[in-house]
């Protein structure tokens, strides 16, 4: 496959496959909380792989700081993988926490959250994916959903908190 040629598929197939997965999880687990955890876990696995894909397909310069990394992730990462842009705002004074806003969230296109699943963070996979991606880049973070369109908010917002900068440890055989 030629590099940099980004192949594309029907976005609705994607949206519906995600929905079908969430439906399956709700069937398999008893609490919304457990489903949130599973979605986060799956997101993590995806995020870790996305970083590789991103670096292989773009000419992005190395990001020097956590702030810069988050901005690149929001702007270029989201555009490359989801075709939408996200914005970063509300940095705390120590540059360790920020808010990521997804303007036009593709996952929720056909979704209505039933009343009995008010605790479900339908888009929780985002949190895992961002955490996974940042962890591969040596930033251990906590990512939580703070605003959810499905619960009546105007947009989807996540809060990213930097917990620890991991040491760049080479694999033992190097």
């Amino acid at each position: 496959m030629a590099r940099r040629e980004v192949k594309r598929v029907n976005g609705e197939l994607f949206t519906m496959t995600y929905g079908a997965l969430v439906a399956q999880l709700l069937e398999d687990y008893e609490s919304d909380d457990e489903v949130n955890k599973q979605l986060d876990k799956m997101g993590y696995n995806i995020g870790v792989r996305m970083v590789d894909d991103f670096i292989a397909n773009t000419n992005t310069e190395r990001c020097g700081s956590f702030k810069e990394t988050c901005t690149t992730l929001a702007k270029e990462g989201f555009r490359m993988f989801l075709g939408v842009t996200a914005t970063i705002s509300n940095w705390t004074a120590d540059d360790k926490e920020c808010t990521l806003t997804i303007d036009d969230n593709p996952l929720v296109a056909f979704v209505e959250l039933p009343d009995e699943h008010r605790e479900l963070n339908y888009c929780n996979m985002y949190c895992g994916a961002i955490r996974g991606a940042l962890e591969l880049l040596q930033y251990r973070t906590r990512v939580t959903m703070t605003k959810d369109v499905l619960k009546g908010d105007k947009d989807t917002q996540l809060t990213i908190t930097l917990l620890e900068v991991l040491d760049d440890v080479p694999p033992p055989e190097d």
Partner: protein
Amino acid sequence: MESRTHPLDRALPRVPRDISLSTYALLFSEVVRYTTNRVNSVPELEQKLAVIGRRVGVRLVEVMAMRDRTSRRRIKIHDVLAFLQTNLWRTLFGKPADLLEQVTSDVCSYMLSDHDMLVNKFISISKEYGDLNCAAFVGGIVEAAVDGMGFPAEVAAHTVEGKGTTLLIKFDHTKIPQEAL
């Protein structure tokens, strides 16, 4: 649901937007990984994937029908098959399916083949999974689609030497009227 418009009140975009293939591949592989951890056998795994596929199929065909300006009802089995090969495949994978054949001796069984099944491109199957074909998911989509058109069928995905992935579509004899054949 205070400020948000209901999904049904929003206009359906005329052309669905695209998404990066890698994103889809990663999501699908998580679906497969998750399902694998919850079953004990390959047939059970394929069955579960088909259930997930069916959920997608029902919804996808509904949006397709809404976009379809011809609003023609497909009442012949061959129209239904042509719909699968062309319309459904184009919507799903951006190209028609490669081959459609009737199983000799049976007017209700057909094989729909794709040399390069999108969902299988990124899944490598280890030995202990033998003849697993993750296109069972696509089989589920097809099952839901034909069911919605009034042509219930059982669909199974097989790996066939030289043809890639073949979906064996077996329509239910008892439910297909003679004049549809």
